[in-house]
């Protein structure tokens, strides 16, 4: 297949950036999207041009490094798939494909298609962990967990922190990520002691990072490569309401 790519090029954080057109001939439909970009970059290097910078790591759809807005959709047209697992057979010969970085104030562009997602680390640092050392994996029956809770916690824990929810959200909100990281712990016994300080800390860190507010549209969940359900945000809301009304959770009271 022969494709035309329109790629966001930006030399650094201070550069204004622009869309640049590159023709890419002889693309195999069996290539992954990132392999197709590798082919383009090899040619750019041979031609003495600067290759296109993009984030990638495992290329197995589990690390959350890839972050491409492809034709206006986070991770491209295939649902439940990261950009690295997207194959060129999803596109047709002669197509023009627009590739942009995630767009959010909290995710400043580092170079070309690479954005800085430290804002997510700040949200995690504000409470997305269990303080007590829990040791190695305990015997499964020593702490019983209801099947429904385990399933819901697991579906939240599937979040790979790629940032597609923020990229897709019309409000630029990171609430699906925050909700996934809050509820994967709040549904399990190990997460209970810090349950209510965690949710306040993480929502505050989310707002401080410059993300927008959630208005329950649902674009995040549709764009999520791991299919984190929208009702995860409802779990976060309930914990947040409880935390703000629960005086017993305040230290010293």
């Amino acid at each position, binding site marked *: 297949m022969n494709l035309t790519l329109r790629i966001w090029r930006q030399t650094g954080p201070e550069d204004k950036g622009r869309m640049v057109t590159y023709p890419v001939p002889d693309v195999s439909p069996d290539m992954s999207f990132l392999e197709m970009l590798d082919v383009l970059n090899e040619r750019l290097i041979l031609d003495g041009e600067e290759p296109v910078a993009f984030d990638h790591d495992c290329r197995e759809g589990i690390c959350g490094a890839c972050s491409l807005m492809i034709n206006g959709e986070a991770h491209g047209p295939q649902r439940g798939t990261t950009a690295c697992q997207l194959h060129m057979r999803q596109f047709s010969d002669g197509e023009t494909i627009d590739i*942009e970085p995630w767009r959010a104030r909290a995710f400043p562009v580092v170079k070309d298609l690479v954005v800085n997602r430290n804002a997510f680390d700040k949200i995690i640092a504000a409470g997305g962990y269990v303080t007590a050392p829990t040791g190695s994996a305990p015997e499964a029956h020593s702490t019983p967990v209801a099947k429904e809770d385990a399933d819901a916690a697991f579906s939240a824990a599937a979040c790979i922190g790629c940032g597609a929810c923020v990229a897709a959200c019309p409000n630029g909100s990171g609430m699906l990520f925050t909700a996934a990281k809050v509820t994967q712990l709040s549904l399990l016994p190990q997460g209970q002691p810090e349950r209510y300080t965690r949710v306040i800390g993480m929502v505050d860190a989310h707002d401080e990072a*410059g993300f927008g507010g959630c208005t329950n549209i649902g674009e995040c969940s549709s764009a999520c490569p791991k299919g984190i359900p929208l009702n995860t945000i409802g779990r976060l*809301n309930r914990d947040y309401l409880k935390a703000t009304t629960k005086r017993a959770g305040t230290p010293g009271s």
Partner: protein
Amino acid sequence: MAVTGILLVLFLIVHMLGNLKIFTGETSFDHYAHWLRDLGTPLLPTTWYLWIQRAVLTVAVLAHIGAATVLAVRARAARPVAYAHRRKIHVNYAARTMRWGGVIILLFVIYHILDLTTGHLNPQGDAANPYGNVVADFAPERWYVTLFYTLAIVTLGFHLRHGAFSAFRSLGQQTPKGERRARAAALVFAVVLCAGYLVVPFAVLTGLVA
């Protein structure tokens, strides 16, 4: 958003039920309208209850707009550079028209108060005869009033469809099954409220109420 929205929704329900009294005849409807002024007496002086309700609703509307403005400003600030190519994957017309829909509803409410509360924009504008004001307002030759009213109510319906679901969610609705129920309840509520409001002008238009 959710708390002020719920206050406004409670008013919308009572207001719709009051409107439907138009089908019980002129005397009954006018009596209802006058009773609203006497509500709360003798505990409160005449019209005091009405003014208290108006004050509460005004505060709710302002707080609702205030919260919406904060969300809109944050959303704009959160994405300083727009996408060159943007495609929506989640079809949710109601959710995406909340802001402009809200502006349309606000403009309608201002017009509606000048029309049927103060009577300035009403062809009759007789405070003693609300039934006559409604009939004169939606007369067939004033079809454009009915058209604007219909558009505003349909906009309100969309606003309520997403707003009602969103209120459930904001107040802690958290299971997938509950989400399906909340969405269904919001849709049924929006349709019933739209129908309840639209039946009055169309009854006047078709001569059912004269």
